[in-house]
């Protein structure tokens, strides 16, 4: 559907799919990514159509490589896009900051997808501040339709200024579906050319000094574009209160103003760097009270206050600084904006939220949290059982970003430190130097290629006493099963040689490297114990495919999963339940029962049962 050439057709698209459609309408011809929620579906959607429409896409090993591939193409005049989650831009930041000096010839859009509320992230950093650091222009949509339009707009601005342009989304933009109207498709064009220009493209200090000035001139030009931008506009005129907002927050403002029947003006900012200072100044002059509504940090508020100081010093500015009505954390809701605006504008609330809260507090006494868990049949559950048993709770176990972060929950409880992708091996080395304790650093297969390799090289070089447990489920599972260098498959759907993690480890000089099947628990425990005893770094690869992929394949081939069975030998000792925490194991008064709709017949419970009371698993 995404590549359908029907101008005016109106379809339901996820914000991220709308961005992918924008790619096709803008004639973007190179798309790169490292998958990360909430950005993954942009490149995934492109991956399904890339071959047909003649564009090149790749799942890069990590975000900085993704940015560099796309930058190389854009320098050669080919329109490009790179998509990543907010923390992915940290990985790519080194390239980004200097690419701003170098610039591009073909339009280059960098999507940075933030995650207020940390639905699927380790932090909720506000990536709008990257605009100040890099000085690059940035647009921010509020709906799927705008997300598509802004891809085309960003390409246009990028080519006018010869600079990459950031397109910032958040979870509620990328993961919201809404109607999107198709525009005209523009064919891909991969015929680039590098027009050599050493002073522009080679950032030695003498050139960089000059290019910094060029960048600052471009910011001035960009500000003019922002002043006239159709995306920076007054969407509602009013008297008493003026609201300045952007992105997801705008949607809550629109509804809150209506619910409160406020006579409010709304300035919606879609190009958020550089900001349209004159437009904002004009707006400030019209209102005695101005409210800045934005999620996370007071990015707009800082700017608005700076502008107000010169042009409207008496205007009262409400937001999250001195007159704090909104939090600097978490995501917003219509309710939050209704409550804040009611206070600021001195209106009574039309809805009795307090009584809803009281009633809900009473009802929620019955509730218990239902946290995300490892899927039934997940090989990581077996790996964690092995790690926990082999270390007997005596080792420190730094962990990493991915499904295996779910291992911290009881009963498995593997994971002592978690910072960012690739950090487990480095932190393990530090912990060992500081405490002398054994360490088992957990990392995934995709994450290994993303950022654990330098850590492993460092462990070999500096002889750190760490054991790296690579939980290799042959895919990038958490973000939607994207391929990676260890899978032998690319984003274009071509088959390539697999890079084996054990080969990389041996190549780096790790002396103890073994591959185990996590479901062969006894053998795996023995190997891991050996690895931990090894002086210097060691690597154990726990290899078994993601159960979701296995089940999907079986479903495709019309093969049924024969669930495990609990026989009458069961003494209800609950070893299987308490050691694995598998959701398919149901406790009853007499014996454990297996939920046949959940069981993936992985055999882990069978291998643990002290009474051999679990049978089945003819995989």
């Amino acid at each position, binding site marked *: 559907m995404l590549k359908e050439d029907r101008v005016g057709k*109106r*379809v*339901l698209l*996820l914000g991220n799919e709308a961005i992918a459609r924008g790619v096709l309408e803008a004639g973007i011809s190179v798309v790169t990514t490292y998958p990360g*929620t*909430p950005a*993954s*579906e942009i490149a995934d959607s492109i991956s399904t159509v890339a071959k047909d429409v003649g564009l090149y896409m790749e799942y890069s090993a990590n975000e900085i490589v993704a940015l560099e591939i796309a930058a190389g193409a854009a320098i050669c005049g080919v329109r490009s896009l790179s998509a990543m989650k907010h923390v992915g831009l940290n990985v790519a930041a080194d390239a980004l900051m200097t690419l701003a000096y170098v610039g591009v010839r073909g339009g280059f859009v960098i999507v940075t997808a933030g995650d207020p509320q940390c*639905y*699927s992230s380790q932090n909720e950093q506000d990536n709008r501040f990257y605009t100040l650091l890099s000085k690059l222009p940035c647009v921010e949509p509020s*709906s799927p339709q705008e997300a598509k339009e802004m891809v085309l707009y960003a390409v246009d601005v990028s080519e006018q200024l010869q600079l990459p342009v950031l397109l910032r989304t958040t979870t*509620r933009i990328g*993961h*919201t*579906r*809404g*109607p999107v109207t198709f525009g005209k498709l523009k064919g891909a064009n991969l015929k680039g050319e590098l027009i050599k220009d050493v002073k522009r493209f080679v950032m030695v200090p003498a050139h960089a000094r000059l290019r910094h000035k060029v960048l600052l001139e471009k910011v001035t030009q960009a500000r003019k574009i922002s002043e006239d931008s159709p995306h920076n506009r007054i969407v509602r005129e009013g008297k008493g209160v003026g609201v300045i907002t952007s992105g997801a927050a*705008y*949607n*809550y403002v*629109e*509804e809150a103003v*209506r*619910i409160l029947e406020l006579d409010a003006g709304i300035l919606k900012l879609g190009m958020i760097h550089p900001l349209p200072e004159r437009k904002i100044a004009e707006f400030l002059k019209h209102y005695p009270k101005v409210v800045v509504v934005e999620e996370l940090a007071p990015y707009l508020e800082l700017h608005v206050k700076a502008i107000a100081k010169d042009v409207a010093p008496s205007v009262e500015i409400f937001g999250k600084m001195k007159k704090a009505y909104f939090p600097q954390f978490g995501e917003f*809701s*219509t*309710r939050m904006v209704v409550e804040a605006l009611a206070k600021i504008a001195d209106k009574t609330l039309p*809805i009795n*939220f307090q009584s*809803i*809260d009281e*009633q*809900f507090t*009473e*009802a*929620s006494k*019955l*509730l*218990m949290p*239902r*946290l*995300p*868990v*490892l*899927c039934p049949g997940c090989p990581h559950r077996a790996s964690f059982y092995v790690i926990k048993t082999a270390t007997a709770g005596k080792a420190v176990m730094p962990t990493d970003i991915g*499904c295996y*972060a*779910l291992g911290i929950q*009881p*009963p498995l409880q593997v994971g002592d430190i978690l910072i960012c992708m690739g950090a487990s091996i480095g932190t393990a080395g530090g912990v060992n130097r500081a405490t002398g304790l054994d360490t088992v650093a957990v990392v995934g297969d995709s994450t290994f290629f993303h950022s654990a390799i330098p850590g492993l090289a460092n462990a070999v070089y500096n002889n750190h006493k760490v054991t790296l447990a690579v939980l290799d489920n042959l895919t990038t599972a*958490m973000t*939607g099963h994207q391929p990676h260098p260890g899978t032998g498959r690319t984003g274009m759907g071509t088959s390539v040689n697999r890079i084996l993690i054990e080969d990389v480890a041996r190549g780096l000089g790790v002396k103890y490297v073994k591959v185990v099947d996590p479901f062969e628990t006894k053998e795996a425990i023995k190997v891991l114990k050996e690895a931990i005893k090894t002086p210097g770094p060691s690597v154990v690869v726990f290899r078994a495919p993601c159960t979701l992929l296995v089940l999907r394949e079986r479903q495709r081939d019309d093969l049924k999963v024969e669930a495990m069975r609990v026989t009458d030998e069961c003494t209800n000792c609950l070893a299987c*339940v*308490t050691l694995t*925490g*598998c*959701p398919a*194991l*149901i406790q009853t008064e007499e014996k454990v029962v297996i939920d046949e*709709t959940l069981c993936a017949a992985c055999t882990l419970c069978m291998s643990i049962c002290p009474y051999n009371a679990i049978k089945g698993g003819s995989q």
Partner: protein
Amino acid sequence: MTSCDIVLAGVGGQGILLAAEILGTAAVNSSLNVRVSELHGMAQRGGAVVSHVRIGEKVYAPTVLDGKADLLVGFEPLEALRNIKYASQRTMVLVNINPFKITGVEYPRMEEIFVQIRKFTKNVEEIDAAALARSAGAEVTQNIVMLGALAATERLPMKPSSLKEAMQELVPKKYLDVNVKSFEFGYGTIRDQLCSIT
């Protein structure tokens, strides 16, 4: 009625995203404005999942305001309760009575859950979606049973047939028949339950 706020609540893996996408697609195909909010990634792995579907000309926010849901669909009872603050007296609540247990925790008594739900609204319909899905041919289609049930409330601004058309777009061909059957079973059951009241 051309506006409608729907909250779909359940557990990751129960097919809530598909149900929400079918509703959203049917709305767009019926020339309505709509927002469907979803959560992916970490939120999907067997954790509590909620999707909001908001239909109406003036809809901007992806999520429903507390107390303002027209329809709340619990794909399992505890998750219906977890999201009950979206309900008020005018809300119709549909609950699949089959609990999705939490490993290592005792599930509350079913009667107590429904007592609490009924404190928010008297319009509560219980439905055994698992039994209906099984008799349709596949227990995994409980989500579509609930979708049929939703259509039978006659509170949606689009026709039930538009939901079936959207299913044809979104459900793989080889599973379409069993899904359509599940939809009909859910639809018929709730229609009969509602008729017997009036």
